[in-house]
């Protein structure tokens, strides 16, 4: 084969050691390719990050299917509880908007359906958006839901559609993280689903806890006036604060 190239490649790189080597020449590492080394921290960090991702994917590929599923379901769940405080607030925003179970289920379903779509699309690489764009918009969606809760007595009939479009946005948020993290190709769909299932569990747990708490504590008071407005104001202000913070 190409002898010339080989000499270039292998040059003097052969490093040979011996445990007691009396011969100093054997310890010299001579490089025939005295190329420039680059010690720029940013480049090295970027390369390291990419390598870590490759390593995680290799590790995952070597795991059993059930272990992988477990890890992704758990990751999806943890993305809501305890780490996804922004998503928790959004879901609580939906919770406080209505007393009717039917309306709540409708909204949550729309939200879930929407974020599943964008999560899948983005993870498959069809849609791409920077986290720096998606994140402030997610915070704004929290503000919007809170404002709507505060200003309107009843949810509008457009509400499920608004929630649906916000859901698309939140899905992109999930996806940016998931792609940064990396999904192994061979189990792509099932792991994506697993992550999504985890997210749904997380969401439902938030709703369930909220429901139980509200029921126990405020059983006898008139729920709407006592809680809807102040909770929504609080949620809205938090969202607003995050939004401003994310822009700075």
């Amino acid at each position, binding site marked *: *084969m*190409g*002898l*010339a*190239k*080989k*000499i270039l*490649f*292998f*040059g*003097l*790189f*052969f*490093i*040979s*050691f*011996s*445990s*007691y*080597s*009396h*011969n*100093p020449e054997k*310890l*010299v*590492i*001579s*490089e*025939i*390719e*005295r*190329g420039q*080394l*680059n*010690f*720029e921290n940013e*480049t*090295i960090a970027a390369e*390291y990050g990419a*390598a*870590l991702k*490759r*390593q*995680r994917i*290799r*590790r*995952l590929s*070597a*795991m059993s299917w059930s272990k992988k599923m477990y*890890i992704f379901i*758990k*990751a999806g769940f*943890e993305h809501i509880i305890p*780490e996804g*405080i922004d998503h928790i607030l959004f879901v609580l925003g939906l919770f406080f908007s209505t007393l009717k179970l039917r309306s709540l289920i409708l909204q949550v379903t729309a939200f879930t359906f929407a974020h599943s779509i964008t999560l899948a699309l983005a993870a498959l690489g069809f849609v791409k958006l920077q*986290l720096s764009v998606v*994140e402030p918009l997610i915070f704004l969606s929290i503000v919007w839901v809170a404002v709507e809760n505060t200003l309107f007595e009843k949810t509008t009939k457009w509400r499920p559609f608004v929630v649906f479009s916000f859901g698309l946005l939140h899905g992109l948020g999930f996806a940016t*993280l998931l792609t*940064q*993290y990396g999904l192994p190709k061979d189990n792509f769909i099932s792991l994506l689903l697993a992550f999504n299932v985890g997210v749904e569990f997380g969401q439902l747990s938030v709703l369930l806890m909220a429901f139980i708490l509200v029921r126990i504590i405020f059983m006898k008071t008139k729920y709407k006036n006592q809680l809807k407005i102040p909770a929504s104001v609080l949620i809205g202000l938090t969202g607003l604060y995050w939004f401003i913070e994310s822009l700075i």
Partner: protein
Amino acid sequence: MKKLILISGLILMISCQEKSKLDPNVNPFFQDWTTPYEVPPFMDIKNEDYMPAFKKGMEENLAEIEVIIKNAEAPTFANTIEELERTGKLLSKVQRVFSNLASSNTNPKLQELQRELSPMLSAHYDKIVLNEDLFNRVEEIWNNRENTDLTKEQQKLLKDTRKQFVRSGALLNDSQKKQITEINSKLSELSTEFGQNLLAETNGFELILNKSDLDGLSDAVVSAASEAASQKMDQAESEEEKEKYKDKYVFTPHRTSMYPFLTESTRRDLREELYNSYVMRGDNGNETDNNDIAAQMAKLRAERANIMGHKTHADFILEENMLKTPDEVYDLLIQLWKPALKRAKVEVADMQAVADLEGKDFKIAAWDWWHYSEKVRKEKYDLDEAAIRPYLSLDNVIQGVFNTTNKLWGLNFREIFDIDSYHPDARIWEVTDKDGSHLAIFIGDYFTRSNKRGGAWMSSFKGQSNLDGRQRPIVVNVCNFPAPVGDNPSLLSFENAITLFHEFGHAMHGILTDVTYGSMAGTSGPRDFIELPSQLLEHWVSEPEVLKSFATHYETGETIPDELIEKLLKAGKFNQGFINTEYLAASLLDMDWHTMSEVDAQKISNNFEKNSMNKIGLIDEIAPRYRSTYFAHIFSGGYSSGYYSYVHAAVLDSDAFEAFKEVGNVFDPELSSKLRKEIYEKGSTEEAMDLYVNFRGRKPIIEPLLKIRGLDGSSD
């Protein structure tokens, strides 16, 4: 920021490595490594740990030597030679980690340490090898060897140990010793200067082009040149200098910049300019001229050889090699030279025909070679590199080399995830033998990155030895393959795949080795032999049977088509006249520089290289692979009188592989096991030529090599 928490949560779950149980307050080199298979606890080792460990390692080493010398008993193989094998454990422990990481995952601190350590270490080893009391003990055992009952391996160890002392001047008188020390230190200064000059000369020339000068260049080459110009702009200190590079394109005599230009550019004048800048490096009569340094070094080497009792430097060097005398080396080179030169002349004629057909009115010159050979290649050996890559994903090729060694020797590989490596791209495998027993740890670090040296190499983090119980090695391969883009797999060129097999061949030498004494393990043999195990393994990657077993398209899963394999193998014969001629010319030049007697060396003329090349009839269209003034291998590396090694090993590997061809089965069980037992397991426990003959049943012949390279007349 909180988004990162999710990622870290997931990472933790997936990485769950075992934490090392080292005491964080104590230097990790001073503790026993309880990691699985004693893989170095990379995450615990900090830059600051090296120097103290080196110092203590050297101290301990000297103390151990002292104990051996002070032993009141008469010197025996066991209390001296074998004890020597046991010395320097701490030093070796730190040195292996340091030397590897300083090349494969380095940082400014390690680079600085390397400069600091190099003189310290050579002074340290001098103390041992120039220790008279120690040598006297060795000599006594040597003189008594006929009356001692030693195994073959022990005899060889005794011989090698003694030789190291002798070759460092142990048999000389004091004034001679002083002379040697002076010569060595002058040589080391000169060789550093040679290297620095070469670097300055290579960086000293730039071809700065305008947009209108880019005729023929592909987009990739243009953008690389434009990138080079903008880098120069960033580095420029004055506005004036910045202006010089603005909107320009820069090419340099670095091969990675020059070769694409010479291949693609249709501007003959510019090709000539760049090519000449390359071949004139160190030969410009300026303050970075290397002519005088080369001559001085040749003189000093001849002088040293004389003091050591050898006729020439080449005799002195070759004493340790498989080919023992300059005559043997010249013999080999000249045998190959004739068919190579003949083939090169055919190639010139082929290129001239293309130029004539284009209506060009010039004679093909050295700077036209790349451009016109590419045209011939397209016409005669039409092979699209890009069509092959999809079949050669890195994982496929790794699987291919694993399968090959599995079929040859029954080895199995299991990737390990619960041990921390020094970089997430450095993957760790456990290698087990056919009976399931642990054989070695293999680390494969394949992607290029900015803090890794260029090139490809094999090394080890732990050696093999059976002296005090069975100790199995930790072997590493480092390459510079392109890292994958995004989520796509890394796709290799066929050349890359060959490199991977080559390095893995070295790794096999380090992994299969099974010797008693660590200093004779694995790749410790002579330079013109150690490329045999690596180059030999390359032959399997070109076997259609093997290629088909792993080369499947990364998207479609389709196996590589026969037609593509055929083209691929045919392309291997392309340009071989040129490649071999330039290489052999450099090898002969190396030998000429180092077969001068001390008297001849006093009157080296300025025409030394020219005369040397005229003597063998090198044609004007080809320059030696390295001209003297930039022949770093021999003037600032360790390859003086050794550049021929590559082709010598090629003779061996072609002849050895021919054995498999003769029986018509590249996995013939009997031959495979013989190969393992006689070559890969033996290290340097016997003379290299004996090992070869044990395997092949006879001495090597050059015909198989000529056939493989198309130099047997079949491609004309």
